[in-house]
């Protein structure tokens, strides 16, 4: 199995995992790593290493970070650069995390790059708009 680590500025990661659990139930192989004001990249690297020890990461680690170029991302880069089984996707969102949790049940994660693509796609398709003018019944097939 691959491990999922959500790494963010502040408590967002912890709360995002909790939100995900409201929908998908308890997640045993997902960790939340937070960067608290006053901490630096070294602290985050240490937290990532701690999380990797606790999770089943036999087939790799997928880091889901909030911000490209931010400290949680930069810290993850340090671990990812020396391990081909690790990967990072930024712009973490609830649809992305849900998709990766369901991937975790079905996929061993041996193809980390395919998982990264799938995470990006889930994040993209999670962006939708709704406005009264968009209501259309015409393509609705009636039963």
């Amino acid at each position, binding site marked *: 199995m691959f491990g999922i680590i959500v790494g963010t500025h502040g408590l967002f990661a912890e709360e995002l995992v909790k939100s995900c659990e409201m929908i998908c139930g308890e997640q045993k192989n997902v960790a939340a790593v937070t960067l608290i004001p006053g901490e630096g990249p070294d602290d985050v690297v240490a937290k990532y290493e701690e999380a990797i020890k606790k999770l089943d990461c036999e087939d790799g680690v997928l880091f889901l970070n909030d911000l490209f170029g931010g400290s949680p991302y930069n810290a993850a880069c340090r671990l990812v650069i020396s391990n081909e089984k690790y990967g990072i996707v930024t712009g973490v969102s609830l649809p992305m995390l849900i998709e990766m949790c369901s991937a975790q049940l079905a996929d061993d994660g041996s193809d980390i790059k395919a998982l990264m693509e799938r995470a990006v796609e889930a994040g993209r398709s999670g962006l939708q708009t709704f406005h009264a003018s*968009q209501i259309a019944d015409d393509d609705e097939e009636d039963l």
Partner: protein
Amino acid sequence: MNIVLARIDDRLIHGQVATVWSKVTGCTRIIVCDDDVAKDTIRATLLKQVAPAGIKSHVVDLEKAVRVYNNPKYENEKCLLLFTNPTSVLYMVEHGVDIKSVNIGGMSFKEGKHQITGAVSVDDQDIESFKKLNEKGIELEIRKVDTDKKVMLMDVLK
């Protein structure tokens, strides 16, 4: 019609249904079977907007739901049926719809209901309908998502 899941959940199509159940059941249609919701055009219209990609969603009253069930056109369709309460399920069963198991996902607390689990609250009519479904040998299991352990409703109703 191949009923891949019959679920009571008064939130109808929401996160757990749209992302988890639609995938694990492999359904091609989600059919909301409820007289009140079918009459509520705004709610019905909005429900049709939130069908997961590749899945059609419909809102029908119970009479029509039975007709659709018996329509040979949908004989091989994998359908996920959603209900807001057990009385609607009982109507379907009493009109010949073959439901062997009912998943109870969420029945919200309202005045006059009492809470039997975190996600499930029932009133007297719900209890009566659940008892009748149970007498017919239909499994009544409480689970929010498929990976949860099944809790038998009749065990917590006592």
